[in-house]
């Protein structure tokens, strides 16, 4: 790029070399935008997977309160989380209650986000065991329904 004697770019000379300046700039912006899109996508997909795992873990833990399932609620929640590629971070699965709250985490697979500290994304779900009317809390073949919500 040429400069006029007084330091101000002259009209036509200032425009020459526009592509040589713009092309690296466009490439740089494209690379940054690509990383942002891929990382945001990886985070969103991981969040969806975490919510699925949390829902499944909470429902499994609540279902374990039914008499047909022998393993504890905690173990059932962990099994449901593992098959969904997640890890149980917290399980409010105290025996005796009909409601469980589970928090799980899933690893984030991104280009830059994991190196910035966001290695895992968490999700929370709550499930409640509802027994049909007329059955005692510890007996009968109760139907299990779950209600889950993100935390």
């Amino acid at each position, binding site marked *: 790029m040429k400069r006029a004697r007084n330091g101000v770019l002259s009209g036509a000379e200032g*425009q020459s070399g526009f592509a040589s300046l713009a092309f690296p700039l466009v490439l740089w912006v494209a690379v940054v935008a690509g990383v942002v899109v891929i990382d945001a996508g990886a985070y969103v*997909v991981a969040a969806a997977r975490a919510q699925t795992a949390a*829902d*499944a873990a909470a429902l499994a833990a609540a279902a374990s309160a039914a008499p047909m399932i022998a393993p504890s609620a905690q173990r059932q929640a962990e099994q449901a989380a593992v098959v969904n590629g997640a890890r149980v971070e917290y399980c409010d699965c105290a025996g005796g209650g009909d409601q469980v709250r589970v928090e799980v985490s899933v690893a984030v697979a991104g280009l830059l986000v994991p190196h910035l500290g966001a290695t895992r994304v968490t999700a929370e779900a709550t499930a409640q065991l509802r027994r049909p009317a007329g059955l005692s809390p510890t007996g009968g*073949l109760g139907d299990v329904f779950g209600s889950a919500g993100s935390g």
Partner: protein
Amino acid sequence: MSIIPPAQRWRKSDGSAALESVMVLPVVAVIVAALVAVAGIITDLVILHDGARTGARAAATTTSQRVVVDAVEAALPEFAHVAVNVSPQHRSPGTPVTVEVAATRSLGPVEHTLTARASAITEPVIDSSWTP
């Protein structure tokens, strides 16, 4: 050394910026199109995952494969055709069941298949009359 008159200098470089812009703009267009395509794939993936989750929930509460497929298809109206795979097909209470959903999307001339998978623990009382 000859001195070029200002008017001649203008003529010499006139249009060079426009020409260079024409060279850069297709590159920008391709990059923007690629980013939009990637965002679309990610959106499809999340929607597909939601369908898989619905299928896993259905599979955990029913013994019927048809009910699972119907639940997935009802959850994914955006896709014309989805392939649903439930494993294991015969499930018992307390065991994991996995639902894998695959759908094809065309990106211009290129077709790509997206898959999503979700699992659930089969519930104590499974019923074939599950409604999503």
